[in-house]
């Protein structure tokens, strides 16, 4: 590998004595420390559980599946999302539906949230606009199995979700 020589600007004696520059740097850090201590409300931080970072309108969080007015899932088990899913996180089992207008419905609809890369392509692919991505990103869990979301975990909650 070729050596790349960086020409740094020459230091004057004041900078080379090092001590004075250290004092200057320390005054800067002290300024910050005092600012943080006396005006904690101006810290560029969120006190997480009490305060949450506002997420963008189009933020892609956990998946949700819309319900029909009668409460059943809008999904018709067309396998579009499963086919398009890059990491193969979606696993659908279809079954016949009694309603002749609908024909098919998912017997089970499982998303492996560990595999999911939150790309949103399932949402793009859905012909029924059944699946969408909510702004919820807090679904950490104790085991891997608990992060395999089933249909009931994915269905829209009654009172809208964040």
């Amino acid at each position, binding site marked *: 590998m070729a050596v790349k020589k960086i020409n740094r600007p020459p230091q004057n004696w004041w900078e080379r004595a090092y*001590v004075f520059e*250290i004092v200057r*740097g*320390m005054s*800067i*850090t*002290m300024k*910050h*420390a005092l*600012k*943080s*201590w006396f005006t*904690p*409300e101006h*810290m*560029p*931080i969120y*006190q997480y559980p*009490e*305060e949450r970072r506002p997420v963008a309108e189009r933020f892609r969080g956990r998946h949700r599946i819309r319900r029909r007015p009668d409460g059943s899932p809008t999904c018709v088990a067309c396998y579009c999302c499963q086919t398009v899913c890059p990491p193969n996180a979606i696993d659908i089992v279809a079954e016949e539906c009694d309603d002749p207008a609908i024909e098919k419905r998912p017997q089970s609809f499982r998303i492996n949230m560990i595999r999911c890369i939150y790309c949103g392509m399932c949402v793009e692919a859905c012909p029924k606009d059944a699946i969408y991505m909510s702004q919820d990103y807090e679904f950490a869990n104790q085991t891997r199995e608990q992060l395999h979301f089933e249909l009931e975990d994915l269905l829209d909650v009654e009172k809208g979700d964040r």
Partner: protein
Amino acid sequence: MPEWAQSIMTSSITWAVLAGVMAYMLTLVGIPVYTWWERRGAALIQRRPGPNRRGPYGLVQAIADAVKLAVKEDVVPAGANKWMHAIAPMIVMTVALTTFAVIPWSGDIELFGKTVRLQVADLNFGIIFILAISSMAVYGVTLAGWSSNNKYSMLGGLRAGAQMVSYEIALGLAVVGMVLVYGTLKLNLMVAGQEGSLFQWGLFQAPLAFLIYMVATYAETNRVPFDLVEADSEIVAGFHTEYSSLRFGLFYMGEYVHMAVSAVLTVILFFGGYHVPWAHTLFGTTPYATLFPWVMAALAALCLALAWDTSRPKRRALTQGNMIFAAILVAVAGGALLLATLYGLFYDVAWFAALCSMVTQVAVLVVKFLFFFWLFIWVRWTVPRFRYDQLMKLGWKVMLPLALFNIGLTSVLVLAGWL
């Protein structure tokens, strides 16, 4: 005052034990607070709150960390030298604690015709004792590195050996300069030599020695910018890579105790120890006794301010612990004010006034000590780490000649009668 109480109060053993208690307060009891302080200080400098959840100001976090450390699994790596692996952290801790034996916490006070002082051992070679004992600290780190059977540990240990021996020389020579200035090796006489005006302080007597001493101290305690020994971006964690549980805890505590002893020593050598500048001109013949109520009032004011701050609504919900803490602070403030009142009533009782002046002196020393402890933290989160060759160059080509020059200069000035 009954006879037995007098004999207890004038016994040198009592005061040695009290001085030991003082040292343990500042080290073993202080360590949780120091770790918390380090983390909060780092956070404040970086514009974030740091540990602020468990307990008031997040203070309980430190205890939680200590408990976590104590109950962790103690892993000894395969192929490690078991004995040396076990002994190394003990050496670090023992050495750091032993140096406190010669620290004078207060000046002489007269009690029932006897002179006592808050100091464990008044050795006539006090400062050499500290240098000798702290020179043993390098073994702990070096052995830890060697015995872990790990390349990174080994590198850390070797770095420690080279670095600490190199900077010990500069440190010792800077101290020799101060010995020339004060004309004694006894620490209590060194502090006594700084009585009077501000310009009697070692800092103003020998500023060059102060500079060398500070740099060498940071290198000796393996703190940033000289933490090559545990440079985590280069050699994982250096000498304590293979340490866990309480053995790691001992290294961790040893570092803080070492910082504490360095901070106290800095105060004693260069910042007038327990003296307040111009004390005698400003506050009469018994300045420290006169200052006592003011110190107590300041303590009460600080406690009340903190209590107000804790009970004030913040961005987070108030916990019950905060209210208890505030209550304790108010109680402390009340006690301080009570003591101040007692002084106002009994200031003409000789032994009470003497004890009050001792408390004042200890308080002055502790305040200065806290500043230098904060300096350690402050520097750590400001200055980046040195490269190894820069470290060695600085130690041998800059610090050592400067220290020698300082000795020559100081000798000339002392002989000329200017110091």
